[in-house]
């Protein structure tokens, strides 16, 4: 990118904030498979619109197409922010249908799910490149955050100057360590959360309003 273009984009971003032309920021929920992205998306959508967004599952790659919930208005401390929430397929550098067979699927279904999963990952990357104004990055806080997918995705998001809020999800699990996630991404705000149980959603909505408002 040329210096002039970069200066123009930087000025434009400062003036316009993260809002798209229609005044609504489009926030992508990103992260590796099984981090609890759809559970979080459903939590936000139910809390503020009364309707869920998508099916949740223990089997990886349950979400294989991006799903958008429009005009989700979040109110906190007298401020309100209206967002489009985009729940994206989990991003991975590998998809092996045998993984689905191991979850009890028959081979044909596993191969079909694998094909759809690869398309879903590519779609998630395309949304990030073209159509996302900010990112909620979801991690399972019971797992090691130092994975390459996390390193690459946060690097890609940062390189595009998108605001990012890290969610240390699944704090209801016994071996959860949100501190480890905070230490892994010290340059970003981290919110410990249980999307499943609804723990600490007050802080989540405060940070969303701060970060994307």
């Amino acid at each position, binding site marked *: 990118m040329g*210096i002039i273009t*970069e200066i123009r984009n*930087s000025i434009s971003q400062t003036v316009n904030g993260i809002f798209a032309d229609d005044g609504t920021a489009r926030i992508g929920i990103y992260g590796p498979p099984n981090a609890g992205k759809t559970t979080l998306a459903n939590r936000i959508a139910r809390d503020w619109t009364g309707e869920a967004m998508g099916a949740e599952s223990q089997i990886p790659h349950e979400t294989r197409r991006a799903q958008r919930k429009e005009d989700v208005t979040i109110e906190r401390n007298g401020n309100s922010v209206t967002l489009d929430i985009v729940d994206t397929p989990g*991003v*991975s*550098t*590998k*998809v*092996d*249908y045998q993984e689905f067979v191991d979850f009890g699927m028959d081979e044909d279904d596993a*191969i079909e799910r*694998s*094909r759809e999963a*690869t*398309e879903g*990952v*590519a779609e998630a*990357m*395309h949304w*990030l*490149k073209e159509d996302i104004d900010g990112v909620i990055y979801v991690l399972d806080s019971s797992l*090691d955050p*130092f*994975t*390459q997918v996390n*390193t*690459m995705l946060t*690097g*890609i998001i*940062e*390189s*595009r100057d998108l605001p990012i809020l890290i969610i240390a999800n699944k704090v209801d699990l016994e071996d959860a360590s949100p501190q480890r996630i905070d230490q*892994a991404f*010290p*340059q970003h705000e981290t919110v410990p959360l249980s999307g499943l149980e609804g723990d600490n959603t007050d802080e989540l909505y405060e940070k969303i309003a701060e970060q994307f408002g």
Partner: protein
Amino acid sequence: MPEQVKHDDGEGGVQIDMISAGRMDEMTSMEKIHFILDGVREGKVVILEAGLSPDEEAKLIEVTMTEISPDGFSGIEIESYPKESPKSGFLDRILGEDESKMTVIGPANQIETLHKDSELISAVVSAR
């Protein structure tokens, strides 16, 4: 299945290609992606002296997904060090801050990462 390198004694091994930053600089982004994936699909482990840019990493993920097939290639394992410093600023970028990072890429079914942190990556490469 990935092609294995045969030693004189007939034992299978894994070919490791170490690519200099200069060699990669001569290529366009898509040439880099295909160069890497062609090697990895042949069962090679590719080590890049200077890694890829974030945009190239995004393209690598997208193209990898299009090449996965149930009867052979299941994707890539890739490792590089996480960034140590906080997000670089606008001036850092226009002044050309060096963000290069050594990167290892191999077939997903042949590399297993044992440990990774900001200073150490430990992995096992098998000749399956």
